[in-house]
C-alpha cells in the first residue's frame, strides 16, 4: 500500500489528482488494467460477477467510461444504464456503478469519478430525470462515495439483489434533475395502452 503524507493526523489531499473519464478501448493495456481490479476479490466483494481469472474477450460488454491515468490504472466507471429497470417506463432514469483498483482506495478517486460522471450524463442526456446507485448496507465506504458525490440517500431496500447466492440489503441513492437546479419538460411516454 502506498504511504500517504500525514498532516496533523489527517492524510494530506494529494495535490492535483487529475481525474478524467474516457471510454474503454479494446487495447491490451485497457484489458490488463481492467483485469487488475476485476480479478481482485477485495474489489469485487460487493459485485455479483465473481473475480475474473481470464482476460475478458474484446466482445465482452465492457463499459464505456473509465478513469484515466497513464497507464490506465484504477478506476472504471460503469456507464449509466439508459432506461428504467423494467422497460415499461420511459427512459428518464439511469443508474451508475463503479470499481476502483485496491491500490487507489481512500484517496477520493471514486468520489471524483462519480461526481464527474453524474455531471457528464446529466449534460449529455437531456431526458434524464434521475440517476440512481445502490450500495450494499455493509459497504459504508461506497455509501460515503455517493454521499460526497451529491447523491441523496433514499432508504434501504431489503433483499434487493442476490450477491454470490445470498440476498443483500441495499441502500438506494439518487440524484434528480431538480437537485441540480434543472427543470425539464414532461416526459414523452413510449408504451402502448
Amino acid at each position: 500500500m502506498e504511504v500517504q503524507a500525514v498532516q496533523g493526523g489527517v492524510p494530506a489531499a494529494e495535490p492535483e489528482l487529475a481525474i478524467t473519464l474516457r471510454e474503454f478501448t479494446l487495447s491490451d493495456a485497457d484489458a490488463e488494467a481492467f483485469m487488475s481490479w476485476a480479478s481482485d476479490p477485495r474489489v469485487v466483494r460487493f459485485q455479483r460477477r465473481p473475480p475474473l481469472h481470464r482476460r475478458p474477450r474484446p466482445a465482452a460488454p465492457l463499459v464505456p467510461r473509465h478513469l484515466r491515468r497513464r497507464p490506465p490504472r484504477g478506476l472504471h466507471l460503469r456507464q449509466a444504464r439508459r432506461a428504467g429497470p423494467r422497460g415499461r417506463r420511459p427512459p428518464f432514469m439511469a443508474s451508475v456503478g463503479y470499481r476502483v483498483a485496491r491500490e487507489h482506495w481512500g484517496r477520493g478517486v471514486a468520489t471524483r469519478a462519480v461526481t464527474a460522471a453524474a455531471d457528464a450524463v446529466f449534460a449529455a442526456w437531456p431526458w434524464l430525470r434521475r440517476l440512481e446507485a445502490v450500495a450494499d448496507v455493509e459497504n459504508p465506504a461506497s455509501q460515503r462515495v455517493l454521499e460526497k458525490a451529491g447523491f441523496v440517500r433514499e432508504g434501504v431496500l431489503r433483499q434487493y439483489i442476490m450477491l454470490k447466492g445470498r440476498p443483500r440489503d441495499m441502500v438506494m441513492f439518487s440524484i434528480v434533475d431538480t437537485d441540480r437546479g434543472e427543470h425539464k419538460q414532461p416526459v414523452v411516454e413510449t408504451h402502448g395502452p
Partner: protein
Amino acid sequence: MEQSSQETPRAVEVTLRPFELSDVDAMMVWASDPQVAAVCSWDAYESTEPLLAFIRDAVLPHPWYRAICLAGEDRPVGAVLMMPTGDLCRAEIGYHLARAHWGKGVATAAVKRTVAALFDEMEGLERVEALVDVANPASQRVLEKAGFTREAVLRKYCAIKGVVKDMVMFSFINTDPLVE
C-alpha cells in the same frame, strides 16, 4: 375481549384466477373508470374492442396476471399482477380494483393472497415489492395492511401520463410473516 364498534369487520375473502376473454365486460368496469386510470399509466378505455385486444395480447400471455373475485362469485372486480424485474430474486406487483369495491379490504385481501402465491410458486423469489404514488395514501394503506414494509421514497421513479412522480417503495421479503 370486548368488541369495539370500530373494530375491523370480518376479513374479506377473495379468490384469484386467470383471466379469460369473456371477462372483458367485467374488466371494462374498472378499465373505463377515469378514477382508476388516473393513477395508472394507461388512459381509461372507451370501448371494449381495444380492451379485448389487451386481454388477448397482454393479459393472457402474461406470466402472472389474475382476476380478483369476491368469494363465491366468478365475476372479477379487479386485477392483480406480478411484473418480473431484472432479477429472479425480486418481483413487483400491481393491482387495480373497481371503484365500487374500494374501502372494503378487497385489495388488501388480494395482495395478501398474491404474496403467499408468489412465494410459493416462484423459485428463488426473495422479495416482492410494490410502488405507490406518494399522493395515493389509500393504496399505501393496502400494502401496509397486507404486511408490507415501507422502505423509501424513490424520487422521480415513474412516469405516469408524462409526469415523473415520486413513488413510495414497499416490500415483503420471504422472512416476513404472512398476514392472516
